[in-house]
């Protein structure tokens, strides 16, 4: 009998009695053969949308920031809203692949690859906004400290905006290294299944991975340390993003609750995005046996937790604003709920605070339709949250004569929609060229979480339970002996 065991209380994470070869086939087949018509149409649409974004970005750079709806009072609007929203979406990938790795959560293996890919694509989209928002993108290298001919002009190291430069670029680099190194064994699997030109390309991409014991030893060592580094990193990234606001003295921004509140919100929105896309992908790509209802339920539990933290943070902010006795702070919050942007505040409240509460109920948590609808609500709600924080706090400053109402122009809308196109284009290409589920990692949990093995564990548990009942009814042997028997199996 196998030395593997996991409690039958847990749900199987791989269904359909898969063998190792089945796992390879099921996941690799999505990258092989001619792409289907659905995929081509989807790629065409997202490529077209991405093109709109690129044109709007080009127009912004050509004409200047004046083509946006910004004014003297509202100097940050959709650009930074979108930046924070995209960065937040990326956080789910790192949470799944790093934090859940350290917590030894086996369900992460079904979704970590796709979530990490989303992290990278989301950070690419996010990174565009600070760059184009500078106005003079050709001077973007000024933000990096390097010996230069500008009279050795250095950046200001005590500015949170510079911390952000370091945080985002480190986050992107580490996520990319973690994701790609994790991909090596799976690319080698694709390489060994293909021939000719295809094999040649995958051979280049696999860096010569062959799966020797030494390679795996180093791979595991690297994964553990990168996970250990990425865990505080992901918390630091959104904390630093929140410092962009929290270290200022603008009412509505100047709050100490921002770092944990932003991190929870980021994970909340990231999981929503992972669910939105993976609920579709698992059906189209035939991955229902690897991304099961159990995976969806686990992700919904994370959404419920982080959504509730976000809800508590909103209420704390509100209470503290009035408890502080600071009239500017009080006004900022009254203005959020009842001012001209009331619709965004209540949109945020209903999408982020009320919507996830449905996940207290198990049938709803396990319903694909409910999960899909709520995940879209959360995506919208988290965009509203950033809009509320940024625009509503800015549009009425200390001098009522400069109060204004901000509306975006078509260029800003085009850039935002365009980044969604860029994200989807990259994601669709990823789906067709690389394994969407981590093949090697799923194989490694098969014997503890595959349904055929778990049925056997259930029999062991059942027998164990009967022995325990006998003992409780007055049998002779001791309980410790029973536990010991199970360890031997």
């Amino acid at each position, binding site marked *: 009998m*196998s030395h593997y065991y996991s409690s039958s209380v847990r749900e199987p994470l791989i269904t359909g009695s898969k063998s*190792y*070869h089945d796992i*390879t086939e099921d996941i690799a087949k999505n990258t092989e053969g001619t792409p289907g018509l659905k995929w081509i149409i989807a790629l065409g649409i997202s490529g077209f949308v991405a093109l709109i974004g690129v044109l709007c970005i080009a127009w912004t750079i050509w004409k200047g920031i004046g083509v946006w709806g910004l004014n003297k009072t509202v100097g940050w609007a959709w650009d930074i809203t979108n930046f924070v929203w995209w960065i937040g979406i990326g956080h789910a990938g790192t949470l799944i692949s790093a934090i859940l790795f350290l917590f030894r959560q086996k369900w992460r293996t079904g979704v970590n690859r796709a979530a990490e890919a989303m992290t990278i694509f989301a950070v690419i989209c996010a990174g565009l906004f600070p760059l184009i928002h500078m106005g003079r993108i050709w001077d973007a290298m000024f933000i990096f*400290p390097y010996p230069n001919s500008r009279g*050795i*002009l*250095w950046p*200001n*190291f*005590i*500015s*949170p905006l510079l*911390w952000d430069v*370091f*945080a985002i*670029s*480190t986050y992107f*680099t*580490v996520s990319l*290294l*973690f994701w790609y*190194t994790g991909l090596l064994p799976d690319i*080698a*699997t694709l*390489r*060994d*299944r293909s021939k000719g030109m295809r094999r*040649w390309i995958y*051979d*280049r991409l*696999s*860096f*010569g*991975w*062959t*799966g*020797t*014991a*030494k*390679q*795996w*030893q*180093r*791979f595991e*060592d*690297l994964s*553990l*340390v*990168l996970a250990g*580094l990425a865990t*505080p*990193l992901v918390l*630091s990234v959104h904390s*630093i993003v929140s410092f962009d606001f929290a270290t200022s003295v603008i009412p509505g921004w100047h709050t100490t609750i921002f770092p944990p509140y932003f991190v929870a919100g980021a994970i909340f929105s990231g999981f929503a995005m992972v669910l939105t896309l993976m609920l579709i992908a698992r059906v189209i790509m035939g991955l229902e046996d690897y991304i099961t209802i159990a995976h969806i339920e686990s992700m919904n539990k994370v959404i419920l937790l982080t959504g509730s933290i976000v809800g508590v943070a909103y209420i704390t902010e509100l209470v503290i604003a009035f408890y502080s006795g600071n009239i500017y702070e009080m006004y900022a919050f009254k203005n959020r709920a009842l001012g001209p942007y009331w619709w965004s505040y209540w949109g945020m409240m209903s999408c982020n605070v009320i919507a996830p509460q449905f996940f207290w109920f198990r049938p709803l948590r396990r319903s694909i339709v409910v999960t899909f609808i709520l995940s879209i609500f959360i995506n919208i709600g988290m965009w509203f949250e950033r809009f509320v924080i940024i625009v509503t706090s800015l549009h009425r400053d200390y001098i009522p004569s400069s109060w204004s109402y901000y509306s975006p122009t078509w260029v800003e809308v085009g850039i935002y929609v365009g980044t969604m196109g860029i994200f989807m284009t990259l994601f669709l290409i990823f789906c067709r060229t690389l394994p969407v589920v981590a093949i*090697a*990692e799923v*194989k*490694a949990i098969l*014997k503890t979480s595959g349904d055929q093995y778990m049925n056997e564990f259930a029999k062991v548990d059942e027998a164990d339970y009967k022995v325990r009942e006998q003992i409780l009814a007055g049998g002779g042997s001791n309980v410790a002996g029973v536990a010991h028997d199970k360890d031997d199996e």
Partner: protein
Amino acid sequence: MKHKYLLGLFDDEEILLTATEKIRSAGYQMHEIYTPFPVHGLDKAMGLQDSRLHTFGFICGATGTLFALSMMSLIAAVDWPIIVGGKQFLAFPAYVPITFEVTVLFASIGMTVAMYLRCGFSVFTDTEVVDLRATDDRFVMAFCEKRYSEADDQNKIVDLLKQHGAVEIKERGLDNEIQPNLFVMDEDDHGHDHGHGHH
């Protein structure tokens, strides 16, 4: 076809682990084992030395910490002091975020580059695969025939492989030599005649 290897293919990682221990305790050191996914305890079972990658990662991280702190201090307090909001030039608390990010960046890049170099990874060479199923559902144990050149040894290895559950046994010539590994008890591995026990 210069380098010849004797390959034993397994279809289950638990059988492989037991076989590895048993074959080593019979005095034969396998040259390499290829697996489609990480098998926990396999490196210990085949006698591999521990990876030192994490130590290198720590050194890189510490370098990053020192680099970030010293650069920011020198730049902001010595090279070009600028008054920003009346803050002091040497503002250590405000250096913490960047120091942390640079530490993580250095450690991650350093470790990843070290791993790729040590594993001999390259995009320019064509990979020679011992068995195409080694990245799918087979666990391949390779013995170097140069080391076990006598027919007697080879027969014994084949017998041991059969006895401990190999589903397929074959011989393969490779153009490239398999990268040598560092084993814990390298001095004991020169011949099977010691017959040392593996505990």
